[in-house]
């Protein structure tokens, strides 16, 4: 999307929040620790990037609990699940979102931690280093506050953005595209081509699993042949890059072969309106260079001089097998995208009045095993995504379990779905099978949490 700043003919200016959370870690030796962005700080400060007229540095703020409740059913509560660092990382994206929507900046990069793309709608704890989903919180804030509807989120982290996918799975107005190292070889073990969106939103979730060791060339190919043409057709009002940096050839937790040049070029090609940092744990060998490259590319400056000390062009190449694998995936997904309307119609017909699915979710960091049943009303109103209910039960360690029931009414839901959703919420307040009853009505911006044990209601 052309920013309002560009439309006004003002010079380019990139908004940047650098929030390294130098005083926050999951545990002292966890990859998500104080040291993670230390060398990145050294590199981007030493370059003097913050002094450039093309770069405007912003100060983070805390997101409000309501901003979190707009997206998540936090168990046992928002307050219990997030630390101040989470509120600041999420709040940073909101500061940049406001600056972008007001036309103060051309594009923006939230270079912040902790990350968020593995967090799903129901959040019992930390999954894949994430507690709450920064991109989803930002997108829903923007859609509510500024009235835009169509958003594209491109997840460029090496891990499947399963949290973001799950949150927007049934939303036909949010296009979620994730490319990542094949889930058969990497956490979280999902993100296969057949995960295509809910019945009413087929083709609005696109997963591009890539073989291990895919270099720049492979990812640029996917971008050019698949992602960019789809974006052109979808015409999003906002493009978000869920910007992980762990496709890098030195990342200790994954096996891809992407370079700093590759990342800079990716951001130049994709031209996201707002990029939000996700993973990336090669804190010395990748992050200083990758971040420098991304900032320069987004600010419209020359990034050709950014390179890792041990990198030279042509260092990594693709084998025939790898190439065939990637082209095969791209062709298959092109087919899905083109057939999305028919596929949607068929899927809705097959689903009946309610679409139901069961999910088993594992929280690796906190060791929680969650079981969910999700139920979406297949509303006859074509423009209405239908309200959704989620039944969740999470086992933590031995004997302790948290159960909840949530009702989610989407922003663009029809009147009868809004009413039915509300009735479901009220009816479940007396349902003693659950500890917590949640309610999200995005249309009214009304978010509630009812405790069946304490018999009290919290309104966010």
């Amino acid at each position, binding site marked *: 999307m052309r920013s309002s700043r560009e439309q006004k003919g003002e010079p380019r200016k990139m908004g940047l*929040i*650098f*929030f*390294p*959370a*130098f*005083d*926050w870690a999951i545990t*002292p*030796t966890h990859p998500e*620790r*104080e*040291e993670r962005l*230390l*060398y990145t*700080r*050294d*590199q981007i*400060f*030493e*370059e*003097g*990037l913050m*002094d*450039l007229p093309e770069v405007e*540095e*912003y*100060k*983070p*703020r*805390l997101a409000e609990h309501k901003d979190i409740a707009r997206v998540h059913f936090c168990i046992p509560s928002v307050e219990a699940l997030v630390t*101040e*660092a989470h509120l*600041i990382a999420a709040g940073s994206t909101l500061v940049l979102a406001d600056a972008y929507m007001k036309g103060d900046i051309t594009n923006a990069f939230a270079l912040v931690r902790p990350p968020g793309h593995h967090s799903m709608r129901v959040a019992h704890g930390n999954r894949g280093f994430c507690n709450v989903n920064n991109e989803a919180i930002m997108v829903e804030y923007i859609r509510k506050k500024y009235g835009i509807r169509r958003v594209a989120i491109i997840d460029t982290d090496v891990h499947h953005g399963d949290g973001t996918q799950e949150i927007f799975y049934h939303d036909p107005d949010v296009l979620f595209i994730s490319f990542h190292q094949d889930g058969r070889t990497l956490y979280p073990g999902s993100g296969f081509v057949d995960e295509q969106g809910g019945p009413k939103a087929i083709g609005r979730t696109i997963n591009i699993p890539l073989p291990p060791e895919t270099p720049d060339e492979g990812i640029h190919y996917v971008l050019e042949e698949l992602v960019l043409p789809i974006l052109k057709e979808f015409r999003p009002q906002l493009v978000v890059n869920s910007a992980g940096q762990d496709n890098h050839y030195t990342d*200790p937790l994954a096996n891809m072969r992407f370079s700093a040049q590759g990342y800079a070029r990716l951001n130049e090609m994709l031209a996201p309106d707002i990029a939000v940092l996700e993973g990336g744990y090669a804190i*010395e060998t990748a992050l*200083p*260079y990758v971040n*420098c490259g991304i900032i*320069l590319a987004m600010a419209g*400056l*020359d*990034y*050709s*001089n*950014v*390179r*890792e*000390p041990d990198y030279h062009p042509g260092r990594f190449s693709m084998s025939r097998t790898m190439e065939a694998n990637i082209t095969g995936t791209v062709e298959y997904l092109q087919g899905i995208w083109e057939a999305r309307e028919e596929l949607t119609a068929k899927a809705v017909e097959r689903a009946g009045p309610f679409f139901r699915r069961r999910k088993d979710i594992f929280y690796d960091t906190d060791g929680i095993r969650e079981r969910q049943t999700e139920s979406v009303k297949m509303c006859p109103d074509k423009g209405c995504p239908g309200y959704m209910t989620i039944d969740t039960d999470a086992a933590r360690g031995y004997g302790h379990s948290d159960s909840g029931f949530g009702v989610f009414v989407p922003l663009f839901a029809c009147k009868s779905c809004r009413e039915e959703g509300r009735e479901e919420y009220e009816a479940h307040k007396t349902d003693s099978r659950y500890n917590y009853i949640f309610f999200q009505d995005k249309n009214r911006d009304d978010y509630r949490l009812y405790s069946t044990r304490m018999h009290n209601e919290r309104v966010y």
Partner: protein
Amino acid sequence: MLIGIDVGGTTTDAVLIDKGKTIKTSKVPTDHDHLLECLMGALDEVVREVLTEEIERVVLSTTLITNLIAEGKADPVALIIEPGPGMNPEESRLDGEVRIVGGAIDYRGREIQPLDEDQVKKAAAALAERGYRRVAVASKFGQRNHSHEEKMREIVLRTHPEMTVEMGHRASGRLNFPRRAATAVLKAAAQERYRKFAEEVAEAISKRDIKAPIYILKADGGTLPLATSIEHPVETIFSGPAASTMGVLALTPPGQTSVVVDIGGTTTDLALILDGVPLISSKGARVDSHLTHIRAFAVKSVALGGDSRVRAEGQTVTLGPDRAGPAFCLGGPQPTPTDAMKLLKLISIGDISLAEEAMAKLGRDLGCSAGEAAQKVVDAAVEILIGEIDEMFLAWEEEPAYRVWEILQKERIRPQNVVGVGGGSLGLIPLVAERLGAEGIIPEDAAVANAIGAAVARPTLTLSLRADTERGFYTVAEDGTTGEIRDKKLGQKEAEALAKRLIVERAERMGIGEYAGEAEVTSSEVFNMVRGWATTGRILDVGMQIPAGLIPEWTGGGRG
């Protein structure tokens, strides 16, 4: 007895202070081509009839460097940089003659590409050919590893012994390579003239049989012995606004939050004192078009003063940014804010009937009476100042922060006092204060607050230590000192102790050893370095400083 002398844009002011009281003041016009004569003229007036052996301290603040640079009179300096990977060096916006050489050092001070010595030789030859005698050399991350900068210097001096070479890491060791390079260039450009000036000052003062130590005021409100300052010429830039702020600190109750308003003829300088500590600009000072690492108070210069041009636009007035004055009531050609204040009896100087005439003329353009016109002018001036003050507080609140606690602790604060200093339009102060819900203060010695500030300012000093125990060394950002660290498990306490020892040594080298005990730790962080799943070392960052403050001899004003 203490002496403070401030060379300002228009006047040079001096004060003599005894037992916490200002006992003598003087003002002479500033002649920028003869600064030494101005200084001595102002000095002579206050020391007449004083026994020179009773003088304990002489502090100067001067515009010398500011003017040298602004007028382009500084010596030409060429720059040789080793940018390594990263930004395109052509886009770093370094002014002047810049030569680029190959080689690279990374963020932890590791050599990742050897210096291309041949390119250095060629660059030096080309610069000599073009007539340069002064060169600054700077390498990206040169503060974490000096070897390339030292090698560059050695090559230049070997091939061109007539040259002088300044190294980036000696100008500053803070992160931000373009600023370090620019600071090194300014240092090289100003050094020779500054040395000459400092020597002349020392000689002239000694001729007057004054044996007291002589200090110079820096942009961060601290003093430095004149002899040591020769090594730090650019730090003396912008000492004027620093002097005024220190004056306000001396003349208001301690520990309070104040806005310093120094209204001059065409500009007003604004500075902040937060809980008794003058606010330092988080980044270095901007000198002309150069962004530098020079530590300076966060001073905002607003194009509004007593002599500003007043224009009628429909029924409203606009002020400045150009000068119309002197004021009509002081024999000038056109109406000015000073005339408006005179007519409204906010100030005492000037001829009331001329002020009335000026405002009547303005009133005719605005379609109102002389009194109403004067009110509009004053309202407009107050409005501008309020807006700028608000913006300064907002900018302070909006400073980026990189730690959770910094985001949580920053609160909204507003001034308790609005303090007016300088000669001019003090009549505006109570009006501005009232609008801000603060107390308006015009100290008794407001007209020479700058010279008082210089006289009673104490030295300042900072020290930023980075220890990298995995690589086994530490660096000091301020002057590029490095040393070995043997203990891989060096703890936070030990790192702080090391920083304390280093700041004492640094204070002694600077000739301000007696203040080293005032140094406090301002930040202290430890980063565990984890490679694989094992801790392999630590990075420790410790910041220390002697903040701007007043010498113990000062007991006057509001000091309790």
